[in-house]
């Protein structure tokens, strides 16, 4: 739950930047990192430097960033790690693994910096303003919100089950109980989703999320964007 609820209230420079700019900068950074190979140590260094600047601008504590990035890392790393063993190159596969591990971790840190300093709603809104279809962004915010609904229901049901069975600490229920739990979870979540939908419809919801306050890019936003683009351009050209 806490890794989903990732936004941290704050008043740093990065917190106050337009979501679109932060989204673009993070995407550029991740894209640039993905092109880093064994033969590009300077590209990796420039990416790392930009990332360092972002962390400073966001006044993010290293402990928090490391903890969160390690949660994200497996998802990025697993597919990437299978690659060196599929190719045959001059470099030792272990060097390649090391490079891939480092760049994946840096990409994870970039995402953490983005998610920690930007509200999910602003992120979704920013994506819509950048041209991502509203339907997709609405879907994204629903999935995000319903994830919490689902977790809520799971927690309630698990509490009820523990109370009735009297077995404390049994985290993994027996297969038969688990089956019926999943079935009733489905029904409950469906009912709940319908009630939530009703609440929205009654308040004038017509299919897509209405845009949040239009943000105007300030000079600081442009400056951050320019800095990041120059750095990324440099990294690719070096």
């Amino acid at each position, binding site marked *: 739950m806490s890794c989903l*609820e990732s936004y941290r*209230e704050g008043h740093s420079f990065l917190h106050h930047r337009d979501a679109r700019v932060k989204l673009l900068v993070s995407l550029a950074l991740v894209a640039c990192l993905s092109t880093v190979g064994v033969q590009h140590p300077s590209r990796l260094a420039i990416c790392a430097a930009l990332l360092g600047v972002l962390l400073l601008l966001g006044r993010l504590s290293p402990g928090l960033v490391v903890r969160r990035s390690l949660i994200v890392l497996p998802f990025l790393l697993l597919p990437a790690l299978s690659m060196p063993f599929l190719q045959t190159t001059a470099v030792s596969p272990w060097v390649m693994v090391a490079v891939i591990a480092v760049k994946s971790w840096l990409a994870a840190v970039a995402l953490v910096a983005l998610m920690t300093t930007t*509200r*999910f*709603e602003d992120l979704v809104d920013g994506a819509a303003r950048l041209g991502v279809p509203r339907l997709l962004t609405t879907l994204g*915010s629903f999935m995000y*919100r319903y994830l*919490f609904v689902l977790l*809520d229901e799971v927690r309630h049901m698990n509490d009820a089950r523990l109370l009735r069975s009297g077995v404390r600490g049994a985290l993994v229920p027996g297969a038969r109980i688990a089956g019926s739990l999943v079935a009733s979870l489905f029904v409950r979540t469906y009912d*709940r989703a319908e*009630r*939530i939908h*009703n*609440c*929205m*419809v*009654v*308040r*004038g*919801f*017509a299919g897509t999320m*209405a*845009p*949040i*306050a*239009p943000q105007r890019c300030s000079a600081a936003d442009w400056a951050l964007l320019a800095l990041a683009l120059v750095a990324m351009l440099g990294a690719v050209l070096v």
Partner: protein
Amino acid sequence: MRESVVEQTAPHIGLHQLRFQYGDGTLALQGISLTVNAGESVALVGPNGSGKSTLLMHLVGLLQGQGEIVVAGLPVVKTHLPEIRRRVGLVFQHPDDQLFLLRLYDDVAFGPRNQGLAPDDVHARVTEALARVRLDGYVDRVAHHLSTGEKKRAALATVLAMQPEILLLDEPSSNLDPRSRRDLQRILAELPVTKIIATHDMEFALALCNRAVILDAGQVVADGPCRALFADADLMERHGLEVPASLCAPACC
């Protein structure tokens, strides 16, 4: 809050022979006729399963039964739904369903934004609504970390931000501790709009409404002044309700 704009001729809310059956065959409403005038506060009381929620959902077009319904002077038909939903606010029983977004501000702003208001107006609406429910300063709070009492008030704010002229409340006092219940009661008493309060909390109904409509098994079984109806022990007993303590003769308590 906007003053109610009603033509004197048409009733604010009118139901004629409303019938509704759920998909599984449950006859939830069996011919309900009712009128409510502008400015009235009406308690819709009845035991669990008597059809209170089903009735409220018809008033905003979430369910469609047979019969005629007029709300805010408009027949409840598809083409009028956007207008009706602008003028009628429904606060559901479970605040968790109403607080959909993560930040309270966005939840309260949801309705006004859907109305297409400019950001400054949205902001003014949010501020006013939160002040009315005594949650000023809660804009950045994460909705699912509030207490039940706060959630109920927050859910009310999400509807007040739309400045409805009719307010429908489904079991507003359920699951509240005495203090939260009193706070909510005070807040509701201050709202100068037409109210229909579905509840089986008799004291709450008595405190907020002059008139009661008693529902049982999908039918209106009584309609009259709260005090007279609630003090009728026979009537209460027959329909699974209870004479509120404040109306009890000393002997019965």
